[in-house]
């Protein structure tokens, strides 16, 4: 228990730094234009972040968060600490940076340290976010601005009424933005501690049921809120007036463009809705709140021909480049210290071995090579990948499949070891729970064998098709499954 609370502290620090940095994306322009006082903004932001984290953050699809790939608690602690320190440093420098990029950077540092593989798409995602997200958001800001200007020319509102509308617009956009900030990021802050959750379900006032996950996420939400209150004013000032002097209406346009960019280009719900009605969908691209808001400010300023402070913009861009790099290096160094100085287990070694079952499964998936039989067991992903690449003629994608299937672990389905409410908290259906009951007591050496056994036991575990709805279902199933792997892992 004490150990968990200690490890939880770096998650809380990460939450604090996230609050200090990311609140500026939703309330920076409002505070910078003096339309909303910092205290009002911080109060609304804190309340909404906590609500978002507690109510919507517990969605099973991303409960484990990005840190889920780190397979030891001390490793999660260190990776979260590296990410939090990086974000904190950037916040001290008053730079709006992407917290999730600092997390991904720190995880890449862990991957290097633990000889795990880094999915090349996560690197592509980071670079795409730097370029595509500001461009999209900037264009969105210009389009919105033109529309708003036309609307104002037609409606000619009184200056005070316009002020009133803009103020409430900023407040509402900020409130919704804060809610999604809490809902989308809490998993990265607290998700990794879900399998070791020190809390238990509670019933308040005799009718309000608060799950253990919700309590954990509430705690994370409070950490974010404290970050907002104590340290977010610095970055808010950069966003709200450091790059360029912003007026209230453009301030609203910027926040709206930022939210719309996140919604249109990152919302699976919207994609499903559009596809379901036979409409063309927006391409889903990696977007980040910080990149979106800076892109909107710059796009609008260029369109209006307002002087941009290029020095500040340059510092922000350098901050973007430095964030994942610094987080990665810091993570590697801290892991080294945790491992060698404090003798903490920062990763669980993952051995790889190809046996008959794996080769058969590979064949079933259309992956075959005459040299697969000759592959020797290896102690980690990096060595295994090198061996497969050297000895076979498989494509990078097939090599990934070989690694995925040959990974060895140890899982035992033990339904009694967990509170029955945990299954409902994970969003499991009755069919999914029944499938687990069927497998209760069985042990598995390969995760895919457990997955196949679950698929065989219940259609509720079977993947969806390739359409948007199917993709969403698969993401949910993947999220639930990775949580189960954590819970049933006998090596933990």
């Amino acid at each position, binding site marked *: 228990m004490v150990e968990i609370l200690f490890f939880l502290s770096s998650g809380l620090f990460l939450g604090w730094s996230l609050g200090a940095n990311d609140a500026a994306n939703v309330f920076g322009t409002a505070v910078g234009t003096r339309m909303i006082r910092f205290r*009002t903004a911080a109060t609304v932001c804190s309340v909404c972040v906590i609500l978002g984290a507690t109510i919507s953050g517990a969605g099973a699809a991303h409960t484990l968060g990005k840190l889920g790939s780190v397979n030891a608690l001390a490793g999660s602690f260190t990776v979260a600490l590296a990410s939090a320190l990086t974000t904190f440093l950037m916040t001290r420098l008053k730079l709006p940076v992407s917290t999730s990029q600092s997390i991904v950077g720190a995880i890449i540092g862990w991957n290097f340290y633990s000889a795990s593989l880094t999915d090349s798409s996560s690197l592509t995602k980071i670079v795409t976010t730097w370029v595509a997200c500001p461009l999209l958001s900037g264009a969105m800001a210009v389009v919105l601005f033109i529309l708003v200007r036309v609307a104002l020319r037609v409606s000619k509102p009184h200056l005070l009424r316009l002020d009133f509308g803009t103020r409430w617009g900023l407040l509402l956009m900020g409130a919704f933005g804060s809610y999604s900030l809490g809902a989308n990021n809490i998993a990265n802050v607290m998700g990794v501690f879900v399998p070791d959750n020190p809390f238990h379900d509670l019933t308040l006032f005799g009718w309000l049921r608060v799950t253990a996950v919700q309590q954990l996420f509430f705690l994370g939400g409070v950490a974010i809120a404290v970050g907002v209150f104590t340290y977010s004013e610095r970055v808010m000032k950069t966003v709200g007036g450091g790059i360029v002097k912003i007026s209230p209406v453009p301030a609203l346009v910027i926040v709206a463009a930022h939210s719309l960019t996140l919604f249109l280009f990152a919302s699976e719900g919207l994609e499903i809705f559009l596809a379901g009605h036979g409409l063309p969908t927006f391409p889903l691209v990696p977007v980040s709140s910080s990149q979106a808001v800076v892109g909107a400010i710059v796009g609008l300023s260029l369109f209006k021909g307002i002087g941009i402070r290029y020095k500040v913009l340059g510092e922000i861009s350098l901050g973007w480049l430095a964030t994942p790099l610094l987080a990665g290096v810091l993570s590697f160094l801290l892991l080294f210290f945790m491992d060698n100085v404090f003798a903490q287990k920062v990763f669980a070694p993952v051995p790889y071995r190809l046996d008959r079952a794996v080769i058969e499964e590979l064949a079933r998936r259309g992956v075959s090579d005459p040299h697969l039989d000759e592959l020797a067991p290896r102690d980690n992903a990096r060595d295994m990948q090198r061996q497969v690449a050297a000895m076979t003629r498989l494509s990078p994608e097939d090599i990934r499949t070989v690694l995925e299937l040959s990974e060895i672990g140890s899982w035992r389905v033990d339904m009694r070891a967990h509170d029955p409410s945990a299954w409902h908290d994970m969003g499991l259906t009755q069919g999914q729970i029944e499938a687990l009951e069927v497998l209760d007591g069985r042990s598995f050496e390969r995760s895919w064998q457990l997955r196949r056994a679950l698929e065989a036991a219940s259609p509720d575990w079977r993947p969806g098709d390739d359409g948007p709805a199917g993709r969403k279902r698969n993401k949910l199933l993947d999220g639930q499954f990775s949580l189960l792997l954590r819970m049933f892992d006998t090596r933990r």
Partner: protein
Amino acid sequence: MPLFKSSRVMEAQIDEFLDTVGEGGLVYQAGVKSYLQGDVTDFEAAIAKIDKLENRADKISKDVEANLYRHSLIPEHRGDVLGLLEHTDNIIDTAKTSLYQFSVEQPEIPAEFHAEFAKLTDASAAAVDAVIVCARAFFRDADLVKDNLYKVHHFEKEADLISDALKRAVFAGSLDLAHKIHLRYFALNVEKVSDKAQEVADRLAIYSIKRTI
């Protein structure tokens, strides 16, 4: 956060303020003409009325100022709006002072200059009227400000020309010097009302550019 109601109340207050100053211009025009016609009753009534209007305008502008700060409204334009109210209030102050001077000093205006004084008063009152239209437009439609500012300039220029011609005529005549100087002083007083309108117009020209998003 200000409630919608307080925003609406302030809109109404600003409208009332502009109405008051606009009406002050009309009362001033009627007052000077009554003086010229020797209609003492109407002149005294005009003085009493402009006195009331000026007090009212003062009170409203102070209320608006306090509310703008209390609710931190229109942060970007607050200084402009306060400057606008203050300078618009100066118009009615100047008009009131001018009427009082007529009452106190009772200038003796020869009949041959009545028509020119009346024209000068008309031009000054028209400048006030035009600048009130601009000030109202500033709050609702900044583009309309530019469309109306030329009228203020036009009437102010006209007042300058009439005043100049009047002063030349006065000094070309056979009145004694003290009388001439007294008349010039009143010509300047009436002209000053249009100058105050022009000052507001000059500010509005800048404010309206800032107001365009």
